[in-house]
């Protein structure tokens, strides 16, 4: 194979692997007070925000990077990273899409996320985040008419400080843990959503995260508030160029659901996973937490994790309001040398709270996949209920699957169920499918999609088909 062919071969595996050649404004390399001030300044933040960041930075100095996770990684040199990188053209944020750098429009078009008015996805509002900055948010006007705020985090800090001050850090405290605190100090952009009382958001809201610059970490921050009796469905997608270096993505996502409100949060994570030999790829170390603050509130996480060299995250629910409901539906696919340590925490505080965990882990190649979860029933959480199902599917004999469920129960009226299975795709099943005319890859895709069905069904229609294809593609070449 010559170099060109190799390049084509590589692109076939990960079609989002291109990078955009664009002039950037960067913060100086390294992590220090000056860099934090640089970020706060370039985003024209008020003083309280900078103070908050600096407080986080002080706290960070006392924290140690955790090391209890299954996938280990080489030490990250935090002084050797850029914490802010954005297209130069965004320095003075354009007012409209017409003023947006055509290179950016082209990039999103290539990613299948057209931003232009005439080509927009039907019924889906998109916030497009490119490295450290939100470059565009669609359908803002239309949403505004209903009182819905959907904008970049930076804009929310400037335009809606009362909401940000009230809720930022209310679910993931400033000092929560190393990566969350790091994010609090240096976070750049992300999405902000506020759904007013009694409003059902008329379209899917979504954020598309794109890492482009080299040697840069992406530290996005998302905050979603669903006021009393409101409903919102939100989806995030992520891709990055193929590079030999490992890039860090350490995001914080906070959700708050007040009385009778519901938030449905879906993720289709397809960061660059590294090559077949495990070189390069994103470290996806993310803190996601939802607070069911009001009674009868509901938060539902659905994640399809197919990318990243290492995925390390536990989207969780704090069920504080009485009768509140938390759900976690997960598909984690690891192939080649990818590793995942993911699951959820369901913290039952209120009475009659319910949680449901459905986790589907798939490992192929040399990959390692861990489900780690916590079901915690507090002393006053009368009649709490949990149902957990963890299924692992192995392909080949060089990969691993692990299930680490923790259950803490302090209330005898609770009802906790845990089911777990581990299975392998059998030669016989493949033979059966082949005999019916399916080739090896079609057969694997069909069997795996069947295995993941309960979770795929949870995705919004618009994304379910894409996710099904992604599930098939992620495992290509995993059976020989």
């Amino acid at each position, binding site marked *: 194979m010559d170099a060109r062919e190799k390049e084509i071969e590589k692109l076939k595996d990960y079609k989002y692997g291109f990078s955009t050649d664009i002039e950037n404004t960067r913060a100086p390399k390294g992590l220090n007070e000056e860099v934090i001030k640089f970020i706060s300044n370039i985003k024209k933040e008020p003083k309280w925000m900078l103070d908050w960041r600096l407080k986080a930075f002080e706290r960070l100095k006392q924290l140690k990077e955790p090391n209890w996770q299954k996938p280990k990684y080489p030490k990250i040199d935090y002084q050797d990273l850029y914490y802010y990188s954005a297209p130069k053209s965004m320095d003075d944020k354009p007012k409209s899409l017409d003023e947006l750098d055509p290179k950016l429009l082209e990039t999103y078009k290539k990613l299948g996320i057209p931003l232009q008015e005439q080509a927009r996805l039907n019924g889906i509002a998109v916030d497009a985040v490119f490295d450290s900055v939100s470059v565009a948010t669609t359908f803002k006007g239309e949403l505004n008419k209903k009182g819905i705020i959907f904008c970049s985090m930076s804009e929310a800090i400037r335009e809606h400080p009362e909401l940000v001050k009230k809720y930022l850090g209310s679910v993931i405290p400033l000092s929560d843990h190393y990566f969350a605190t790091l994010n609090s100090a240096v976070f750049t952009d992300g999405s902000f959503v506020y759904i007013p009382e009694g409003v059902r958001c008329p379209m899917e809201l979504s954020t598309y995260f794109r890492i482009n610059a080299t040697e840069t970490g992406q530290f996005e921050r998302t905050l979603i508030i669903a006021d009393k009796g409101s409903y919102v469905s939100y989806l995030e997608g992520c891709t990055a160029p193929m590079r030999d270096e490992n890039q860090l993505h350490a995001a914080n996502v906070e959700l708050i659901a007040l009385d009778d409100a519901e938030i449905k949060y879906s993720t289709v994570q397809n960061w660059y996973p590294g090559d077949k030999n495990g070189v390069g790829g994103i470290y996806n170390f993310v803190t996601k937490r939802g607070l069911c603050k009001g009674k009868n509130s509901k938060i539902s996480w659905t994640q399809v994790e197919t990318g990243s060299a290492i995925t390390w995250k536990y989207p969780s629910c704090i069920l504080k309001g009485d009768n509140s409901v938390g759900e976690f539906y997960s598909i984690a696919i690891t192939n080649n040398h990818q590793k995942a340590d993911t699951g959820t925490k369901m913290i039952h505080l209120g009475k009659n709270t319910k949680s449901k965990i459905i986790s589907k882990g798939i490992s192929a190649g040399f990959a390692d996949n861990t489900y780690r979860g916590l079901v915690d029933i507090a002393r006053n959480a009368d009649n709490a209920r949990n149902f957990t199902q963890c299924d692992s599917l192995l392909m080949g004999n060089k990969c691993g699957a692990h299930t680490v469920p923790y259950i803490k129960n302090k209330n005898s009226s609770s009802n906790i169920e845990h089911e777990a299975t581990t299975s392998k795709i059998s*030669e016989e099943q493949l033979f*059966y499918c*082949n*005999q*019916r*005319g399916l080739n090896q890859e079609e057969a694997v895709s*069909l069997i795996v999609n*069947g295995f993941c*069905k309960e979770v795929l069904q949870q995705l919004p229609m618009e994304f379910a088909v894409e996710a099904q294809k992604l599930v098939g593609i992620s495992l290509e070449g995993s059976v020989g």
Partner: protein
Amino acid sequence: MLKIKNLKAKIDNKEILKGLNLEIKPGEVHAIMGPNGSGKSTLSNVLSGKKGYTVSGDVTYLNENLLDLEIEERAHKGIFLAFQYPLEIPGVNTNIFLKTSLNAIKKAKGEKELDAIEFLKLVKQKAGELKFDEKILSRQLNVGFSGGEKKKNEILQMSILNPKLSILDETDSGLDIDALKIVSEGVNALRSKESSFLIITHYQRLLEYIKPDFVHVLINGQIVKSGGSELALELENKGYESLS
């Protein structure tokens, strides 16, 4: 249609088929009978291309060397194996499996793939002909199916895929008399000048419902006797012992 010359097959260094010869012409129904361990299932596996066997000999199918083709290529060219033990595939809806399968074959043949509506129309018609309860089609493939339902499902798939050469591997095993009748009627309805059948069975019972043109006795990896449908009766009376 199918010409097998001196077919030998080994698995784990054990020779199972030891020089088998057989010719099937378009429209013919051949039955292979034989005791346990005589190589009946190996024959159906080798013809459909299952991995794990070391195979030698000549097998010509529609003027092509069958042994050169992948499993799915054989399926695309009209070979269908009704499994003795159809596999369960959890989470996969039976209808979707059938549609994926049919369209994979149509695509390989360069034919137009069916959309959901066209497919459901076809499946409804075929299920009706086979007196097959349609409800089963919306369930997960073979999951929780009774033995009879699994076998009927195989026959339904066969009728939808419309193969040229159908191999039935002990399809009668585990069937009660009513299910046996339905399965046999299904096969009989598919008989035509163009389609051939290779029916592998222990018992003569099935052959009361599906009249074969030829009966072959397979013992110890070789066909030791061939004849008309009367041979099946003879075996039923005298047993395999008399031939070995």
